[in-house]
Every structure is written in structure tokens, then in C-alpha cells.
């Protein structure tokens, strides 16, 4: 076993956890390659989940978006789009996998607590304790046009609703006593008398008075993930989540700062600071040598950032429709427009586009980059590139220093994009003692080495 860090690192025994994030809607999945398969064929979902399970991953993740993305009022046509409902797809995967966790991104703004809690319970029972729920809030109002209630809820209210949503969901999940269900047909009733509590909740968002339909699963109830980056989002995670799915996993210092921030927030709400797993989303590009890996990255970036996509990304920064410009030419001459957030998918979250554009100009001039080359070099960055050994050393360093607990990997190719990782990176991590060599439990909660659900703590731990 090679140890790359000395034993006096903060977490010498820390283990890396992997999830696979089957994004479904994005421009990072290379769809133009001949090896790229259908994004809706169930065989490909099965293939990815089974490969991840072969690689002893903790979880298989699905994202969610409840309206097709638009740019300037027109359906965005460049990226992969069209995907199954997450819980429905995961219930199917429960039948063809044994161990891997199954995590659904499901938002709290356009669902109802009792309905979603029941669906998630069903997934948890059908997978015998492997369900997870990535709580998201939907950061736009236009999604509301697809729902009875219409567009609604500003940022602060979304988290308030999310919190009350979780309270109701947990009350439903906890409403059946352990061993409530009869062990034999001679019992007085299917569920022991008094073992099922009526759930009554009255609050600003929910008014529920309900006899719940389902007992607990092998892991108590689904593992709670959270994905949201604002202060409110992080506080919400500190109060409620078992895992945070972050966007801080590329750079060590940034990841560590994020992790330290979360640990502070955990302590502030009275939780142990190792109570939350941090799994940033990432892309992993592997080559037999550094050069090969970099060459592969160049190729992948060119597939991901096509001329049209480059114009789209730059258009968001400039706040100008750049359609029809030459992506292989120089940067637009115009100054960026500092626009109000119009609530559509085109909305920018760039604090100061003028400053960013000035930086882009400077670097593009110095390196003689085209617009597309500039977007690839300076636009949204993601992921890790290297040899299996180099990446294993790097990840061991990340995890042993408490910057992350693992990664939620986005394969750039469906369905084979995980093969490299499972076949080459996982063994290198195992050699370093930083990755499990077998599943040691059967539930997602066990894989993640989590304590009992937050609502069960007083009784059990």
C-alpha cells in the first residue's frame, strides 16, 4: 500500500466516495461522438448504474429540470435534453442493481410534500434502503408555467418552503413505528394497533392531516442531499442534509474553504462537523500518461464547446445575442450589457461582467486565442485530468485534508464514460487505501458511513 500523505494529516483514514451524476440535460455530455448512445434508452441507464456498482460507487444520481431550457424565448437546441422522470427511472434501476444508492433530484417548489415523500418511500422500500433525495428548490419562476400553481416563490421563500416540506416528509417517514407490520397472518391487524400515527401539520406552506401509507425502510428513510450554493442554501444543508452536492471540487483551496465554511455552519446548529458528506460534482479525464490525458481533454472540450455553444456561453457573459458571429474569430468588440435577471435560462449570475470581459480580452490578446479557445480556457471550468496514479494521489490529498468526502462524477460519454474510472482509477485509489474494496453495507446510509437520520438521533445515537 502506498501512502502519499504522511499519517499526521487531518484525516488519515478518510475514504473517498463516488457517485455518478447522469445529468440528462447539459452540454458536457458529448453527444456528437459515434460512441455516444441514446440518452433515453433504459439499457444505457442500466449500463451506467451497473458499471458504477462494479466500481463500488455509493450512488447513482439523476438531475431534474421541469421545463425545457430556453434562450431568448426559444427552446435551447444545442445540448442533450429529454430525460426520464427521476424517481420512475430509479425504481426501474432498483430491480437491476443490488447495492448502489439511487438518488433523485426532486424539487420542493413544484411538488407537494406528502406526494413526494410517498414516492421516495416507495423507492426506498423497493431498493431496500438505497434511496436518496437531492433537495433542490428551482431557481426560476418560468418552470411554474407547467404547473397548476403557476410561477411563484422568491429565493427566500423557496428555502422556507423547502424546510417545511422536509418537516412534513420526515413526519410521514417517521409515522410508522419500527416493526409496525405484523409478522404473521394471525395478528390482530396488518399494522399493529397504535403503531401508525396520523400526521397533522399546519404551517404557512402545508396543511396536512393524513394517514400515511408506508412503513420505514432498512435505512430509516431516504438520505437527504442538498444542492444549492447561496448562504441560505448552505445553512439549509447544515440544518437538514446528510450530503451536500457542491460545485467546489476543482481547486483544492476553494474546496477546503467551502468545507470549512460548512463545518462552521454545522457546529453553529449543534451538529458534529463530520456529520455532512461533501460531494462536489466533477468530470474526470484519464490518460495513460499526462500528455495523453491532456490531449484527451483538448478533444473533449472541443466536442463540448462547439462554435455554437461557445457563442452561447459568451453571449451569457456579454448579455448580447452573439448568434451568427464567428466563434473562431476574435472576441466581440462590444462592452457587456449589465442586464436585469429576466428569469429565463439565459439569466446570468455573473457579478461584474465588465471585469470578467476585461480579463478575457487581456488573456485572449496575450495568447492569440479565438473566442472559442477563450471560452474553453476561461469559461466554466470543471474536473480533473491526469493518469490514474496522479489522480489517485491528488484525490487522496483532497480527502485526507478534509476538502471533500468524494466526488459526484459526470461522465462525458454515455454509456461508457465510467469505464476508465472503474477500471483504472478505482484500483489506484484502492492501492492507496483510500477507497473501499467491497461494499460493507447494503444501504446508502451505510455506504456513506452516516449516523442515523437526524430525526432518529435522540432515540438511537
Amino acid at each position, binding site marked *: 500500500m502506498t501512502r502519499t500523505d504522511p499519517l499526521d494529516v487531518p484525516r488519515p483514514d478518510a475514504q473517498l466516495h463516488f457517485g455518478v451524476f447522469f445529468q440528462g440535460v447539459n452540454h458536457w455530455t458529448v453527444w*456528437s461522438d459515434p460512441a455516444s448512445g441514446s440518452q*433515453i*434508452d*433504459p439499457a444505457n441507464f*442500466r449500463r451506467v448504474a451497473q458499471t458504477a456498482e462494479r466500481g463500488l460507487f455509493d450512488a447513482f444520481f439523476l438531475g431534474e429540470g*421541469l*421545463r*425545457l431550457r430556453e434562450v431568448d424565448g426559444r*427552446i*435551447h*437546441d*444545442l445540448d*442533450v*435534453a*429529454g*430525460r*426520464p*422522470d427521476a*424517481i*420512475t*427511472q430509479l*425504481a*426501474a*434501476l*432498483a*430491480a*437491476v442493481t443490488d447495492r448502489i444508492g439511487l438518488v433523485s433530484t426532486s424539487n420542493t417548489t413544484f*411538488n407537494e410534500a*406528502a*406526494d413526494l415523500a410517498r*414516492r421516495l418511500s*416507495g*423507492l426506498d*422500500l*423497493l*431498493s*431496500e434502503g438505497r434511496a436518496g433525495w437531492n433537495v433542490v428548490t428551482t431557481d426560476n419562476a418560468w418552470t411554474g*408555467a*407547467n*404547473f397548476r400553481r*403557476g410561477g411563484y416563490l422568491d429565493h427566500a421563500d423557496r428555502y422556507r418552503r423547502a424546510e417545511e416540506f422536509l418537516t412534513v416528509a420526515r413526519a410521514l417517514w417517521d409515522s410508522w413505528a419500527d416493526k409496525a407490520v405484523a*409478522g*404473521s*397472518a394471525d*395478528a390482530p*391487524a*396488518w*399494522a399493529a394497533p397504535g403503531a401508525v400515527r396520523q400526521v397533522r401539520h399546519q404551517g404557512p*406552506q*402545508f*396543511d*396536512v*392531516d*393524513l*394517514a400515511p*401509507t*408506508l412503513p420505514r425502510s432498512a435505512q430509516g428513510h431516504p438520505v437527504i442531499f442538498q444542492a444549492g450554493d447561496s448562504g441560505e442554501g448552505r445553512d439549509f444543508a447544515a440544518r437538514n442534509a446528510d450530503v451536500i452536492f457542491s460545485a467546489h471540487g476543482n481547486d483544492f483551496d476553494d474546496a477546503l474553504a467551502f468545507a470549512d465554511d460548512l463545518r462552521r455552519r454545522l457546529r453553529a446548529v449543534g451538529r458534529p462537523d463530520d456529520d455532512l458528506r461533501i460531494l462536489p460534482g466533477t468530470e474526470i479525464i484519464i490518460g495513460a500518461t499526462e500528455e495523453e490525458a491532456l490531449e484527451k481533454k483538448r478533444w473533449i472540450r472541443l466536442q463540448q464547446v*462547439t*462554435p*455554437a455553444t461557445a457563442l452561447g456561453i459568451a453571449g451569457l457573459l456579454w448579455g448580447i445575442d452573439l448568434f451568427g458571429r464567428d466563434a473562431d474569430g476574435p472576441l466581440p468588440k462590444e462592452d457587456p450589457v449589465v442586464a436585469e435577471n429576466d428569469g429565463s435560462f439565459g439569466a446570468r449570475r455573473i457579478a461584474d461582467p465588465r471585469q470578467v470581459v476585461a480579463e478575457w480580452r487581456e488573456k485572449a490578446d496575450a495568447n492569440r486565442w479565438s473566442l472559442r479557445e477563450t471560452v474553453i480556457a476561461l469559461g466554466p471550468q470543471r474536473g480533473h485530468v491526469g493518469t490514474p496514479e496522479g489522480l489517485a494521489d491528488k484525490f487522496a490529498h483532497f480527502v485526507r485534508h478534509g476538502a471533500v468526502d468524494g466526488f459526484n462524477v459526470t461522465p462525458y460519454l454515455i454509456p461508457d464514460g465510467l469505464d476508465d474510472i472503474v477500471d483504472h482509477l478505482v484500483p489506484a485509489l484502492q492501492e492507496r487505501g483510500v477507497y473501499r474494496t467491497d461494499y460493507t453495507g447494503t444501504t446508502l446510509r451505510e455506504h456513506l458511513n452516516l449516523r442515523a437520520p437526524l430525526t432518529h438521533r435522540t432515540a438511537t445515537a
Partner: protein
Amino acid sequence: MSGPALRLALEIDGDGAHPAAWRRAAHSPDQLLSPRRVARVAAAAENAGFTLLTLDDGALPPGTGPDVVGRIGAVERAAFIAASTSVVGIAPVVPLTYAEPFHVSSQLASLDHISIGRAGWVVSEEARPEAASVWGRPLVDGTVARARESRDGVEVVRELWDSWEDDAVIRSVATSRYLDRDRLHYVDFTGDTYTVKGPAIVPRPPQGQLVVLGSPERVPADQLDVAFVEGRDLTAVTASASAAGTPRTFAEVEVALDTAHATAEERVEDLERHGSWSDRGRLRHIGSAAGLAVLLRELRGVVDGVRLHPLVLDEDLPEVSRLVLPHLFERRDAVRPLAGASLRTHLGLDRPANRYAVAAAAQEDVR
């Protein structure tokens, strides 16, 4: 016998049609919700030759009174079954009284993708007032209001299934376009109580439109592919079937069969001590397997199929599989589904053309 051969459907919710069925099940009560149990029932029914499995559901616990029985959502069970079977059709019950049609549309389209075209949908209602609180919506009160929600809901779900044309994913490397946005459509649905924009987030289902089943008393007949028809005797069923106005009709048949250990009568009596098998106005056969075969043969030509509701799945399904279905298949009174075909194909229903593609083609013709 005249008429096309029957298609056979089986209701597999819980432990059987009787509210106390769990007391005669072959497994312990706490195994009812286990994946092994769900998969085993589906496999037994598929092997027996059923064309369609239906899964009852509702937001509240099934049954009445204090004897709560747990129930996993029908869509989740259906998806699980879809991945563990290969031939049989699967239709979950999904009521639209309160649910969001956009979610329902996505879930069912996904089920059709997962099953590669074996999915159906039984449209039902949430009649119990407590169900309103599950969705935080005002009570939808009375049959008229519930029918309105079902009608609008089925309409918008069907429109959403068509909102992607079959070939909307073009993967055009030359133009960098994954989608052809001209083949995606806003449905801009306006119903009595809400609007839905669209398009769907799930590509068009493999069958184009899932097979929609329900009661023509609650859902307009022109929105249904298959009507479930009731009636306590053959005359009543014949009348309901001829009045249905849907492409296909299935008769509802409740069944309790004699077994090696007890007669059908004894089995019913045993369970009636714990609760009553309420009369829903359906055909009911309590007796021998041979008697059931005779009844089913009589239904051939009256309806296109039957849906069996066994008293206790673990007791009646083996008897039906062993003593009833083989004879029906042998004499071609009923047919087994074929591997690789869609549920629509099994029911002799065409795959519907996409409404937008049809409209676009018509435009072309005018020009």
C-alpha cells in the same frame, strides 16, 4: 365462439381483491412491500400469459377501518416491474383529481421508455376528501368536479406526450444541434381550472401514446383506448360494453377459485370474518376453475378482454395459471402476448401519429 380472442389482464395490487387477503397470503405480512414479492407476483403473471398487469393506487391507505395495509405508489411499482419483466404490459392507476398533470405525464412517458412500449395508464379518481391534503389543494367535490379534473388532466397529459415529435432528437453534428426545435411544441393547454405550457421534458413515449384505460362514466370515451365495463351478469356486461364507445372493452371479473385445501366458498367465508368483499357491481365467479373458463368463453365476442381480480393472489393466481389460462390459449379463446411487441400491438391498437407531425404534413400538402 365468435369474436376475436380475449386479452387477459390481472389486477395485482396488494395481496388480492379482498381487504383481508393478506391473511391468506403465502408470505408473512411484512414481506408484502418487499421487492422480491413485487417481482415474484409479476413474474408469475407474465409466465401465466397475461397481457396486462394493473396496479391499483391512491394517496391514502387502501381499505377502510383500522386495518391499515401499506401500499407503495403504483408508478414506482410499475417501473420496478417493467425492469424485471420482458413481455407483459403494465398499467399503474394514477388519479388526476389533484395530481399535477405535468408530473403524471413525465412519469408515465418514462414508464413507457423503461418498458420499451409496454405501458398503460388506468385513470382513476381520488374520491376520499382527505386526499386533498396530500396535494394541498381545495377539495374537488362531487362526481362532476372529479370528472372535470380527469378530463382536463387526460387531455393535457396526451398533448404533452405529443409535444415532442418522434424524431425531435436529431443529433446534427454538422449544425451542432441536438434537438430540432421545430419538432418540439408548446401545448399551451387551457383547461377549466389551470393552464400548462409544455413542451414535455421526456421525449415522446415509444408507443406514441400510452394505452389509456378507465371507466367511460368518469373519463370521456374518446379519451380512452380501453373501457373497463362492469355489470353483475352477462346481460349487464353486454349492455355496458356496447354502450362504451371506446376502441376496446375489458370486463371486470372478480374471482375466487376452489383450491386443494378449501373450496372457493370456504375461502371467501374465512376472509369475510375480517371484513367484507364489497359488491362493486361486477361479475363475480366463486367456484371451480372450469366454471371460470366457461364464463370467460362466454365473454368472448362480448368484450375484447377481461380483467381478473383474484380474491387472494397467492391462492388464485396459481389455479388460474394452471387450470384456466392453458385451456383458453389452447382453444384460442384467449391469446398470450408475444415478446418484443408493444402493449398497443397486443391490444390491436395502432400507434397514433403525432398530432403536430400530422398538422405539419397537412400544411405541406396545402402548399
